[in-house]
């Protein structure tokens, strides 16, 4: 988790070469903190998974005798001391070897590569929705402070981030797929398009990119159709947070002395909001967006399952139910790395753009 070290008002930061060295040390410490963060998380997952059963019993417990089950558990190495298994796992992790899945015998790295693109694409759509909805509506709420539009938008924001993501997803499906029939209920593309994209000579796994590369307009529309509901569902979760944040910050900057000063100089209302007040109000949004990555990945598990969006979240749910240790550990490790690296980048960006950060 990132921690911003902020100056007290009026404090003076280091300057020149000392400042550069301090910045480098700040980044190095932040970067090194990624290791214990990831290690702690994968360790917790390692032991928790083994406390909830094993993939062999889940798969064959309803047809093999206890002796036959024991043979299979031995074959898989799950009867070895837990510490031995843990050290072996850490050794593999240190060399970038995530192992092979227990239930479908794939390299975990292949699973991460194959399904990671889908999750990245969904996260991209969600961030787009979050910014496109959260920032403008937050601005409107600030401008209409304590008036009807503001109240309505604040309620909307609370609804967005308080509503469970799977419920919102089901609601959207019911309205837009079942009742209105406007949008597909599930999947990343229709079967024909999926086959068409899959059969291209090279693919990125990002369907929109692949569809654009194919130049097939129908495929592009099809991919976008399938992206609307999952993107909205996951994006609105973050949009609610952004809406509240932008509103609060904008209200603060609109009452700042320099804005009052600008107003007294006759600056137009439009320029006052967009040029003078909004930009400073958006600085914390960068930080919050970074922090929301963890929320997005958590939300992705439910969103992907709700919409059959075959990404890492979808696979995580599948492998969890099968107690597939290597697969779950691999996916969680990747999630942990993504969150930790994102937080590192956010800290770095915040240190660059926010002069109050001291290092």
């Amino acid at each position: 988790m990132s921690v911003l070290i902020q100056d007290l008002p009026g404090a003076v930061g280091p300057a020149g070469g000392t400042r550069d060295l301090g910045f480098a040390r700040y980044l190095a410490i932040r970067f090194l903190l990624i290791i214990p963060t990831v290690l702690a998380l994968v360790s917790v997952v390692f032991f928790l998974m083994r406390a909830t059963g094993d993939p062999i019993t889940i798969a064959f417990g309803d047809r093999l005798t206890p002796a036959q089950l024991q043979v299979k558990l031995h074959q898989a190495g799950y009867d070895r001391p837990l510490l031995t298994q843990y050290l072996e796992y850490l050794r593999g992790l240190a060399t970038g070897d995530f192992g092979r899945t227990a239930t479908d015998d794939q390299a975990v790295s292949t699973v991460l590569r194959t399904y990671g693109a889908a999750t990245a694409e969904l996260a991209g759509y969600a961030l787009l929705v979050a910014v496109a909805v959260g920032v403008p509506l937050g601005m409107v709420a600030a401008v209409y402070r304590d008036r009807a539009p503001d109240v309505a938008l604040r309620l909307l924001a609370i609804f967005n981030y308080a509503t469970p993501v799977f419920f919102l997803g089901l609601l959207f499906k019911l309205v837009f797929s079942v009742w209105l029939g406007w949008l597909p209920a599930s999947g990343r593309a229709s079967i024909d398009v999926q086959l068409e994209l899959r059969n291209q000579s090279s693919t990125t796994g990002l369907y929109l990119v692949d569809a654009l590369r194919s130049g097939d307009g129908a495929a592009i529309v099809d991919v976008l159709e399938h992206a609307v509901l999952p993107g909205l569902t996951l994006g609105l979760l973050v949009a609610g947070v952004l809406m509240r944040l932008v509103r609060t910050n904008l209200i603060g900057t609109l009452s700042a002395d320099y804005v009052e000063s600008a107003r007294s100089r006759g600056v137009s209302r439009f320029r006052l909001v967009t040029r003078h007040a909004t930009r400073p109000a958006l600085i914390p949004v960068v930080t919050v967006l970074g922090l929301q990555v963890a929320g997005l990945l958590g939300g992705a598990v439910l969103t992907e399952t709700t919409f059959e969006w075959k990404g890492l979240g979808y696979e995580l749910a599948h492998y969890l139910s099968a107690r597939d240790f290597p697969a779950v550990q691999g996916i969680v490790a990747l999630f942990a790395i993504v969150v930790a690296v994102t937080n590192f980048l956010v800290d770095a960006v915040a240190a660059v753009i926010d002069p109050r950060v001291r290092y």
Partner: protein
Amino acid sequence: MSRLKPPRTAVAAASLAALSLAAVTACTSTRSPAGSAAAGSSSGGAGARPLIIGTTDQVTSLDPAGSWDAGSGTIEIEVYSPLLNTPRGTSDVAPDLAAGIKLTGPKEYTVTLKPGLKFANGHDLTSSDVKFSFDRQLKIADKNGPSSLLYDLASVAAPDPLTVVFTLKSANDALFPRVLSTGAGFVVDEQVFPADKVLDDAAIIAGKPWDGPYAVGTYDKNSLVSFTANPAYQGLLGTPKVKDVDLKYYTDASNLKLDVQQGTIDAVYRTLTVADLEDLRTKKGVAVHTGSGNGIRYIVFDLKTQPFGSATKQPDAAKALAVRQAVADSVDRAQLATQVYKGTLTPLYSSVPDGITGATPSLKALYGDKKGGPDKAAAAALLTQAGVPTPVVLNLQYNTDHYGSSSADEYALIKTQLEATGLFTVNLQSTAWTQYGKDRVADQYPVYQLGWYADYLDADDYLASFYSPSSWVANNYTDPTVQALITQEETEPDAAKRTALIQQVQDKVAADVPLIPLLQGSTAIVTRDSVTGVPATLDGAYQFRWAELSKQ
């Protein structure tokens, strides 16, 4: 602080955001309910649309040596062939890749192959491939594979390209032909598969080692797989009526249901809930087909820890038997089938389900009203006669994460039925499957729920699996007479005599009642109205054979 009037531009910005969303939505409103945007790019060829099947059963591996699960089996039965298979309309086995099979010695089966067999990749399919396939199953013995089914196979020889000789460990093994028809008996291409390890799916797809009715085209594991009819196939099932099939995978059965309802997919097999099936029956354009299934559900008594069991404070075999029989008198299977499972399951009166050769409803004539219904008076008389004080306390365990959420309703109703007699007090408890599996074999559960589906379609799979001392049920039931009968039927070459032995086993265990069969599963296939040929695949084989289906 002074208030600002809302600038028009801010309102415009918000409106723009809303309009953008509306525009994205609006541009999608042209979607047809049953089609896709790229509807013209059918993979069926010659204007034929592929048959699209939906499933939630995930694939473990396409290598028959590395998988033994419903998801992998769904694909494997379409792309690989065994030597023997189950022909349409029966539960028996007949030659598939084989031209014939003979018992040529007490421990020896000789199989002759059809001449001119080929894999889809053009390689010849000979006895060498058959020997290779069985040898590698035994050598790899993968933790996820079915090699344990080949427990009686000692060796395989291929004296000439069309002849395979199987040498068994025990004499007169009447079950071995059945085992040849299972996933352990799929014949694979020795030029594609390694002898000592499971092959990766990507390498299998690249090698095209298909000898079943279909060949895999595009393979996106557990996402989307496309198939096309295999022109090299000469097996029992014949040329597929529909050339192209797409198999789409789902995690959530509700999405699967919605897609078949809206016509996005054509058929669903196995994976819908009772409530979904009931709902789909009312939908226009959708047909729900049901046939018998090989899955069964039953209650097990642990003979050590059940009331008056051998490890309790008051062990008494006669009283323990009376308790078991009184429970058998009291359960109302028909009510369970109709009230909980809405008729998708049927009452079961033997551990061998209806449709399997030799199945005999032995419990029907012995318990309750002797017509299949419950009888409180009969139960009370049994307990009184044995001197069992009532109410008898039954600690009954069930499971919902393995045997389905309906288990909760099923066992709540069983509790109601038993307590309505005034003879029992039932303490119900549910436990997660991983713990359940350990506890039940450790004699922690006096009475508990189990289920079973067949490895191969033979009564023995429902008898030896339950009533042998080393059975997976592990409820401490051992009876020398039953064991002797099971051994006899397993080695009896004469079909009529074997059937009689199978019936004797069922009668004997019905009297001892160490477990109470409750319900037999059904096979449900949901299709769009445009799909025909489903009834042909709803037979005793319990397999969804795509080759039988057509799409209008």
